[in-house]
């Protein structure tokens, strides 16, 4: 820990300063990495290079591997049930983690799940830590007041070999949300509204701190949703100051500090907040009370409007190049300007991903689906974020409600968020998705993705088209 600094610091500054090993001439720093999460898709080349260079993993005890991106999610899955090349990556991950002595939660492990879901639920994710993973949604873990960043495979290799990451300090952006989210409006709607406001590159080069009374009032699940989407605004990381909600969530988790260590940890974690007079490079404020349920219409997460709105018209574009980009997105999405969002029919509904596959998300889906039926034209998948979430949902009766309503109930994994497994859209299929990216082809070649919250996805599944979940009678 560095000596107390006279300068007021942000939460990010505090975590950063506590992990700097050395500073280079241009201000870049060698940062210590506390936790390194590894999965099957972005690690094979890193392990291969490590092996070729005769290097070892510097801290296997800080490195945790899990298969999530391309494992099958069909019930009763086995090592043999995935797609062939995905299977090869799974086999490699198992062999590589065994060879280098790394903890690995395999397909049948009760702790398996999406890497950004299991980190928090196992207590591996803690306030004040630096966390890295070869996946762009790593900022999810920042909901605990960790500095968590997505990296490429060469950086995965660098971290495996050195336990460090070379980075320049980022600029800082505080996003303050105050006011109460309306009934049926979720953290997902809030973050989509923020991205719609600041743009898909609006936070590039910045670390975002989410603050304000709305954020403080969110559960850990809601905070994880916010932080998970920070990358969709271009942010390097998203962070939320830890508080009693955070500490209560962590207490008793298997990898969280135990006994007196937990009390010592809470004492340390309690200092992780932005000093009163610390300055951010930028500030954005949003009135959460005005946020409506949101639906994306285009192929970038900032192409978003309230469910009460219409598909926008490129003729009304104001920025250079905007009209062309909108026309391109509308053509890909097979939509016409002025079309009411609520008139857009859906073929598929996907409830899952590191953004929205936690127990609270599934409870919200069940609350909408209870006693109703999925529209017969719609195929609706519910993919829990982890084996633990799945068990819990089954114990709480959520799974039964969803199955009764006609939703498919799957094993944990990334599933149709990324379409790296058998779960993908066919060309032209339109999906209401609780995932985080609506890029061209993201959920399958020529698949059409609309990002929404879990209750909005559930409502679309029942209605067969987008509908304001707030108008569904309870």
């Amino acid at each position: 820990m560095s000596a107390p600094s006279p300068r007021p610091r942000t939460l990010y500054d505090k975590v950063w300063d506590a992990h700097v090993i050395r500073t280079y001439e241009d201000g870049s720093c060698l940062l210590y990495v506390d936790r390194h999460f590894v999965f099957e898709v972005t690690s094979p080349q890193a392990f291969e290079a490590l092996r070729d260079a005769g290097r070892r993993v510097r801290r296997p005890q800080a490195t945790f591997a899990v298969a999530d991106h391309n494992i099958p999610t069909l019930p009763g899955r086995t090592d043999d049930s995935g797609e062939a090349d995905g299977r090869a990556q799974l086999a490699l991950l198992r062999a590589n983690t065994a060879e280098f002595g790394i903890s690995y939660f395999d397909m049948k492990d009760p702790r398996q799940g999406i890497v950004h879901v299991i980190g928090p639920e196992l207590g591996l994710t803690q306030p004040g830590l630096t966390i890295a993973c070869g996946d762009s949604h790593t900022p999810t873990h920042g909901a605990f007041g960790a500095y968590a960043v997505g990296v490429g495979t060469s950086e995965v290799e660098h971290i495996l070999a050195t336990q460090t990451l070379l980075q320049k300090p980022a600029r800082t952006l505080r996003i303050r949300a105050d006011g109460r989210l309306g009934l049926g409006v979720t953290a997902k709607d809030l973050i989509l509204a923020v991205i719609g406001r600041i743009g898909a590159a609006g936070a590039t080069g910045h670390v975002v701190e989410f603050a304000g009374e709305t954020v403080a009032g969110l559960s850990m699940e809601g905070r994880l949703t916010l932080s998970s989407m920070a990358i969709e605004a271009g942010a390097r990381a998203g962070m939320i100051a830890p508080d009693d909600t955070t500490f209560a969530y962590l207490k008793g988790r298997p990898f969280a500090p135990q006994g007196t260590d937990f009390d010592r940890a809470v004492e340390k974690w309690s200092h992780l907040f932005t000093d009163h007079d610390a300055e951010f490079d930028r500030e954005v404020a949003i009135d959460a009370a005005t946020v409506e349920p949101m639906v994306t219409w285009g192929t970038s997460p900032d192409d978003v409007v309230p469910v009460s709105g219409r598909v926008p018209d490129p003729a009304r574009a104001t920025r250079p190049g905007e009209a062309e980009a909108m026309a391109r997105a509308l053509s890909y999405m097979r939509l016409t300007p002025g079309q009411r969002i609520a008139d857009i029919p859906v073929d598929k509904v996907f409830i899952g991903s590191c953004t929205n596959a936690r127990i609270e998300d599934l409870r919200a889906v069940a609350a909408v689906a209870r006693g109703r039926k999925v529209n017969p034209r719609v195929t609706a998948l519910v993919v829990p974020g982890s084996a633990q979430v799945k068990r819990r949902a089954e114990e709480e009766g959520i799974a039964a409600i969803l199955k009764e309503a006609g939703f498919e109930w799957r094993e944990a994994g990334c599933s149709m968020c990324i379409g790296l497994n058998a779960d993908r859209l066919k060309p032209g299929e339109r999906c209401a998705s609780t995932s985080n990216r609506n890029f061209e082809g993201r959920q399958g070649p020529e698949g059409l993705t609309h990002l929404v919250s879990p209750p909005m996805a559930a409502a679309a599944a029942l209605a067969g088209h987008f509908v304001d979940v707030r108008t569904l009678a309870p």
Partner: protein
Amino acid sequence: MSSPPMSDTPMSEAVPAERRFTRLKGIAAPLPIANVNTDIIAPKDLMRAVTRKGLGWGLLRPYRFDGEGRERPDFVLNREPWRHAALLVAHENFGCGSSREHAAWALADFGIRAVIAPSFAEIFQNNCIKNRLLPVPLPRPQLDAVMAAAEAGEEVEVALEAQVVRLADGRALPFEVSPLARHRLLAGIDDIADTLRYEDDILAFEDRHFRDTPWLAGRTKIEEKTHGS
């Protein structure tokens, strides 16, 4: 914290020339699209790879090929002279989305060694530099000039030492690059070998760090049981 000059990095003659990025001159392919994401640059078929090599076939696949795998004749990389492009010119927020380094590997394998755009996503930028591929940020008016040169099929030069993009008509457009990235590219530094020179600093840091947070130091009993059956 010590801040030694960068020149203390050994500039060994042993660094092979192909590891160093100094200047690049060639055909630039115009791709006047914003938010070109890594799902497009390196679609999921490439994500199945277990090596870094030979991924150029999948570069920008949805733009280059139709559903049956046939070339789309009007796409720039399927036309002369851009089929042999060494540079790519694009609009804002190039490389956003997934952290997949496959995007950088596919560009490099196709023969593209520099991308010029008004802005880049951060992870993509890091991935490029690790693969000796230069992201060149240019403000919109200058970018438009390069885009026009690219569309005209003229050669474009990127000179890293001078930090300028040179057009055939003699214009020299300065660009920003982080001094550390510039130094590492010019010298062809192996990042891991370079970091391992500071192993004593890492050890000293760990001593301090784990005195402060002893619960992070060891391997717990729970962790010992984590390997699959």
